[in-house]
């Protein structure tokens, strides 16, 4: 396999603008943490960020910080710090890396943004267990550490359809957060502002959807690996004008690539769906490995998880509940399989790679027979690779390489 071809990864021009808005975001967050008047909320990635923004909180997303710990490969050294205080190496390595970093007093922000030492101190922590239970445990630890309130939504799980009963439940839970948030913020919720925030979130995620869907073109103008970087604003700046402006620009650039038939991977021969989390500390290696094999990993459940078509400014609270419930990770396998099947068709996929992440069962969909079922129904072959999002002790590069190369050989035999 791995002959000749040197990897050709093409830089996305809009990256500069993204770095700028991410940098502005982190400095603003840092200012808020130091200001006597502004309030900081910590929020899970698909928690009620819209509500928090509308109430004037500066919002920090610990998962984003944890992913940075992974991408900078600081995580593996820090996870044992949390293990030592009773947080097992088998649980979420975002949690253990992030708490480990706090215990060690270190942060990737310090290196990337001179003047910032660590994430801002929270005034309140707000979670949604739609993704997993670990976020609640994670936030509760910080609530004890900082002596601040920790509130959240305990989400229903594993349902196929988002029914009205479920939406009622979550809407009420969101409403129940408001009094505590008003008390911490020192101001009342302004419904008009919430509507505007929800409208911006809707616009942002709609543009993000269009960005990801450019990969349906042959050859694909962007890869999953690009997506994991460029989703930054969709995660941390959802509900803001900056994110919307950024995705307009990125979309224009990708459309231009399509028009000019510019491929993200030169000589694209195979098109792969990635199911599961990225291995943050191996993004570049993985991107290069697939490029060498003229294989475009072009679409993923993970990046697509920040698309929320349900947001509706006319019915902000209820539509937020719907959006948080519609999330892939919280649904049944029946829903997930139907969803993936649509994606396989839309993106003209030849093979699926499942990343079985040791410490994140909720994002490891290969554990209940899904690969076998989908393969049988679609005839599209799949591969499961063992690894982890952050804990590189669970990653074997050689095994990954051999598995991936053998899988691509298998696809080649079928051509």
């Amino acid at each position, binding site marked *: 396999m791995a*002959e000749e071809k040197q990897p050709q990864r093409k830089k996305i021009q809009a990256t500069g603008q993204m770095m700028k808005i991410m940098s502005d975001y982190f400095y603003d967050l840092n200012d808020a943490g130091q200001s006597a008047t502004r309030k900081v909320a910590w929020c899970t990635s698909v928690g009620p960020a819209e509500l928090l923004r509308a109430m004037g909180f500066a919002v920090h997303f610990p998962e984003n910080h944890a992913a940075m710990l992974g991408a900078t490969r600081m995580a593996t050294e820090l996870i044992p710090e949390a293990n030592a205080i009773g947080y097992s190496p088998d649980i979420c390595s975002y949690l253990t890396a992030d708490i480990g970093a706090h215990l060690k007093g270190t942060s990737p922000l310090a290196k990337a943004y001179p003047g910032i030492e660590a994430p801002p101190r929270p005034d309140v922590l707000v979670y949604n267990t739609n993704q997993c239970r670990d976020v609640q445990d994670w936030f509760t630890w910080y609530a004890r550490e900082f002596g601040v309130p920790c509130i959240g939504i305990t989400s229903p799980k594993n349902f196929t359809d988002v029914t009205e009963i479920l939406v009622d439940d979550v809407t009420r839970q969101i409403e129940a957060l408001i009094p505590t948030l008003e008390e911490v913020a020192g101001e009342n919720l302004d419904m008009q502002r919430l509507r505007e925030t929800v409208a911006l979130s809707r616009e942002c995620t709609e543009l993000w959807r269009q960005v990801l869907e450019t990969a349906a073109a042959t050859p694909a103008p962007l890869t999953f690996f690009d997506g994991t970087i460029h989703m930054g604003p969709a995660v941390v700046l959802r509900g803001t004008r900056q994110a919307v402006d950024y995705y307009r620009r990125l979309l224009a650039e990708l459309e231009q690539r399509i028009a000019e038939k510019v491929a993200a991977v030169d000589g694209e021969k195979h098109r792969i769906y990635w199911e599961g989390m990225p291995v943050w500390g191996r993004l570049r290696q993985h991107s290069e490995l697939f490029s060498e094999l003229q294989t475009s990993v072009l679409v993923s459940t993970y990046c697509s998880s920040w698309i929320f078509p349900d947001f509706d400014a006319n019915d902000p609270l209820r539509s937020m509940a719907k959006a948080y419930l519609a999330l892939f990770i919280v649904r049944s396998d029946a829903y997930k399989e139907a969803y993936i099947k649509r994606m396989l068709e839309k993106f003209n996929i030849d093979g699926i790679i499942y990343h079985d992440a040791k410490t994140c069962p909720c994002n490891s969909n290969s554990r209940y027979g899904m690969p076998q079922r989908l*393969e049988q129904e679609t005839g599209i072959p799949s591969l499961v690779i*063992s690894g982890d999002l952050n804990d590189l002790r*669970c990653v074997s590069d*050689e095994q990954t390489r051999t598995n991936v*190369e*053998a899988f691509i*050989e*298998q696809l080649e035999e079928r051509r």
Partner: protein
Amino acid sequence: MTQPVYVGLDMGASRTKVAVIDRHGALLGHAVKKSGIDFAATAALCLDASLEQAGAGRSDIVAAVATGYGRNNVAFVTSQSKTEIGCHAKGCHYLYAEAITIIDIGGQDNKIIKLDADGRRESFKMNRKCAAGTGAFLEEMSSRLDIPLEEMNSLARQATETIRLGSYCTVFSATEVLENIRHGKPVADIIKGIFYSMIKRVLEMDSITGKVVLSGGVVAHNPYLVEMTEELIGRPVLLPPFPQLTGAHGAALYALEATGGQGDGSGEE
């Protein structure tokens, strides 16, 4: 008189295997050595030994393909490489041109590869990160029990009972072994238990369908494992004449194919 030859190098983490074939794909020479730490030197030794057996020299090599974990360390012979999964498939399909399930038990990893009748891979699985069910597990047990690896096969045959070892983990299994020693269980029964646990771990990796081919160094040296597998899956298995060489042979067949040839088996060993 010399003839053109094709070479396959299988640089495993534990052993290096080389196969030299003729233009029909038939095996002319082969060699196996511990990979050690100098992969290139070991590859060179194996290459020369197998060429000699084939009655050929380096200048007779038309093409070569490398496989195995060290496949990128043998650029002095060839820069062409294929994965060991592809090579085992190719080597086994050459010997058994029908739909087969290959179970390869190597020093560091196991594979289960399913092929259709045309030799195309339908699926493959490699073991996860641990030693369960690999040669490394046997080596660890042999050193714990202070019984040489090569004696284990005949000892296992003398067993009257099978000790059950329940754990995935090599370290936990070793504790179970020690516990059985403390309880005065016969060594032969314990070794049979070790073999049994090893095969179980391998068979658990995937569903075992259709005709089964067993390959890899571990079965080459421990034929009792073959019988045990047959007992567990309830039907006979196919055993290549050189179970340890299927990867190297497959690599050589890839080399032959790359130069336009086709292993047609007409020089069958």
